[in-house]
């Protein structure tokens, strides 16, 4: 039997954890599908979509991609840079609102 230690050779973990995460991902996907199926609208819809998305992404990265067993320097190297995209999102939110307002002024009947 191989050692269950994470750095015995590469990443070795009991098979049960993968099956549990697999099941959990199925359940979370079903939930996010039900959000659409039952026509949940408005802020609750967006909140639920984002919640299930973040949970699924977190489970895939931390367990399937073994990130929770890696050294902190790798975790930071991979996770910190994408946060800069959030700044870009903020900038483009202003830009998109500006373009929308301009179009409303100059093409009042729609393009």
């Amino acid at each position: 039997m191989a050692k269950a230690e994470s750095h015995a050779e590469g990443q070795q973990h009991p098979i049960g954890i993968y099956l549990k995460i697999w099941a959990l991902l199925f359940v979370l996907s079903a939930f996010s599908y039900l959000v659409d199926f039952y026509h949940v609208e408005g802020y609750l819809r967006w909140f639920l979509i984002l919640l299930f998305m973040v949970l699924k992404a977190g489970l895939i990265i931390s367990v399937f991609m073994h990130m929770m067993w890696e050294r902190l320097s790798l975790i930071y190297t991979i996770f910190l840079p994408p946060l800069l995209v959030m700044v870009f999102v903020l900038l483009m939110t202003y830009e998109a609102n500006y373009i929308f307002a301009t179009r409303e002024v100059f093409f009042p009947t729609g393009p």
Partner: protein
Amino acid sequence: MTQSNVGKAVEPLEGLDGVVGDWSSDQRVFKEIPWGKAMMWIFLLSDTFIFGIFLLSYMTVRMSTTVPWPYPSEIFALEIGHQPIPLVLIAIMTFILISSSGTMAMAVRFGYQRDRVKTAILILITAAFGASFVGMQVFEWTKLIVEEGVRPWSNPFGAAQFGSTFFMITGFHGFHVSVGVIFLVIIARKVWRGEFDNQEPGFFTSRKGSYETVEIMGLYWHFVDLVWVFIFAFFYLW
């Protein structure tokens, strides 16, 4: 005699000190993992930016258009028994991709246990799931292009940007899946022939074959699944 550390391996620090220590160690930064795996992570980081910026451009055009955005729930509905079920194909595709991630994770695990046959079979199952995902995407694209008349520059439902962002984002993701399927089959063949057990050199790099390759392949495959999680949330459900 005074104690000296010469010739002894230095234990890497843990926590935040470990981050500073690793980065300032004047050695390789990513300790305890093969460099191939670190480089795959760096590649995935760059891919994160590509998909992040695709989704960002989608957000921008959707926010700035004055024409109503098409309702994806109805566009991607399928009629099963004369009743339209919203997003059903997309839901099936989501479950298939998650399942392929599950089999891939198990393949990595059996690889490190040197279970050659189980690893190869699980990788092939993963590839089959991936291929069926691409097949469903082809079906979806065909339905949209031929029957509904969706084009990158116009569509009968509303804002023209719907078509352009849809084809760009799902097309690029489908391309990633297709490339992944090809590489999965190549890796499965190597595992099956025992090239990782015998440490046979790879044809590209001439490095000794090792089951680390299966884990690196797994990282790519899980990333493809990960991107789909975001596409599913932002494009199909939003």
